[in-house]
């Protein structure tokens, strides 16, 4: 990706439209020309110093090139060219941009401290706790993947483990010889990883696609309020929003149907409203914010309900599990409607003010 080919270099020079003499000096074709390439390389020092004032990276590169050309002992520029063409590993040796093959590149996604992770987890559970510019100033500045990754892994195993405990308790009374079901881990992993990765990607694409055309005059006023998040921050927010299901999945072991459904509704609505509140700046920017809000909330509720129905209502009596969605169906949209209206009341003023 970063390794320059000969064509790229030439095109790049054309773009800058600088002095034509330097095109000759720096073009790879000239360097391959023979031993005289070094002489001209060192000769370009004066010319490149003049361009260095512009402070662009290109001038630095030219400067580096001329100094290293002076240090060079023998020929072999041809050989070096080949190395740079196929070797992407050392691409980030000189600059601040790191190759995606190095571990340092990924360290920037894990640049968090303990208190920061705890803060984000708490913020994902309690509505109205985060500041209005949370998405932009906190998440957007430093999106991390530590929290989302370990929260999803923890959720997978907490659901699988407490699902097993629930089925054990279900069968404990009768003399049934209970066996644990390891396959729950695979199912939980599949659906949770899909949810935590696919949904942010879809949302990100929708945000991009449905971006409102903004006048330049308006942009000055609303710049602080509206903001389109990056894919990474969306994944970060979504990962943290799953955190509330970890304690809930442990509480689901208690086999009282009303309590379980109460937990589903509470958890989904708590973290759902946080999601909406955090994403409000981006939603304002979108043309069909209403559909997005409904989509986000319903996906969250459906996920929680799916967890409960699949993992906690014992698999042996599967016809029961298949029958249960029917009474639930009316309840969920009603609650959904209430929340969307409440949230819309928040968002709508922003819409009008634009």
């Amino acid at each position: 990706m970063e390794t320059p080919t000969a064509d790229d270099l030439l095109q790049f020079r054309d773009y800058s439209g600088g002095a034509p003499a330097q095109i000759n000096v720096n073009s790879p074709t000239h360097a391959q020309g023979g031993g005289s390439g070094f002489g001209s390389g060192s000769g370009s020092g004066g010319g490149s110093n003049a361009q260095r004032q512009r402070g662009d990276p290109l001038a630095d590169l030219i400067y580096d090139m001329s100094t290293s050309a002076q240090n060079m002992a023998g020929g072999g520029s041809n050989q070096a060219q080949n190395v740079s063409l196929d070797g992407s590993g050392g691409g980030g040796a000189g600059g601040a941009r790191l190759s995606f093959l190095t571990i340092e590149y990924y360290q920037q996604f894990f640049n968090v401290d303990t208190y920061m992770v705890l803060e984000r987890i708490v913020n994902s559970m309690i509505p109205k706790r985060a500041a209005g510019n949370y998405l932009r100033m906190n998440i957007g500045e430093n999106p991390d993947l530590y929290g989302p990754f370990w929260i999803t892994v923890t959720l997978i195993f907490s659901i699988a483990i407490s699902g097993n405990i629930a089925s054990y308790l279900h069968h404990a009374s009768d003399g049934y010889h209970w066996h644990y079901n390891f396959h729950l881990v695979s199912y939980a992993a599949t659906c949770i990883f899909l949810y935590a990765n696919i949904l942010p990607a879809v949302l990100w694409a929708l945000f991009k696609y449905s971006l409102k055309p903004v006048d330049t005059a308006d942009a000055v006023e609303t710049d602080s309020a509206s903001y389109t998040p990056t894919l990474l921050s969306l994944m970060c927010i979504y990962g943290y929003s799953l955190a509330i299901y970890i304690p809930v999945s442990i509480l689901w072991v208690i086999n009282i149907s009303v309590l379980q459904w109460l937990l589903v509704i509470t958890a989904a609505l708590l973290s759902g409203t946080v999601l909406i509140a955090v994403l409000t700046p981006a939603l304002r920017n979108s043309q069909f914010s209403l559909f997005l809000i409904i989509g986000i909330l319903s996906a969250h509720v459906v996920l929680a309900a799916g967890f409960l129905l699949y993992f906690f209502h014992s698999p042996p009596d599967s016809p029961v599990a298949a029958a249960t969605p029917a009474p639930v169906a009316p309840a969920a949209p009603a609650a959904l409607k209430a929340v969307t209206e409440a949230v819309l009341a928040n968002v709508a003023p922003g819409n009008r003010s634009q």
Partner: protein
Amino acid sequence: MDAKLDMFEDVNTSPSLEGDMSIPGKRTTTTATSPGGVPDYNTLDEPIRETVLRDIRAVGIKFYHVLYPKEKSSLLRDWDLWGPLVLCTFMATILQGSSSADSMSDNGPEFAQVFVIVWIGAAIVTLNSKLLGGNISFFQSVCVLGYCLTPVAISLIVCRVILLAAQTRLLFFLRFVTTTMGFAWATYASFVFLGQSQPPHRKPLAVYPIFLFFFIISWLVLSHN
């Protein structure tokens, strides 16, 4: 872009740099063998039995260090993956669901699933601590995590013995206590070995995945029946 091209030229044309690259590797291997006891031995002349016994003894000493986690240098400095391999294969063999029983009732993990959970889990935990900025090499950490499975494996053996008797509440409680002890021991031992490699404000972030790793494996041990 030009500069990168030049950097390569620079490296490529000066052979002294290539020599530099290989020095760290050599240095670690020489320090690894020298404090291991015998400073210089000729492995060409000695009988095979001695060679094998020496390696087995080295593995055995590491098991001992895990069970009595006081001295860290030997486990961290000359790592090997023999102990983890033995432990992991042993646990996977015992934990796998028996295929002879009817497949509907027994949904235990397959051999490969346990194997993958242990190795991939150790790799992910290690990668996590590397990404958080820990100063420990990859295989050192995998070695420590693998050897720290020893208490969990011991609790698995005890559970297996308990399972031979008829199941009662008391025996289940006994298995629960055994597994919990193995889990706590393993977590504590790996914390002793790996805890120092992280900056203090990130220590909980690095310890939590270790905790989760051993918790999951202990859960497999406890729910095996």
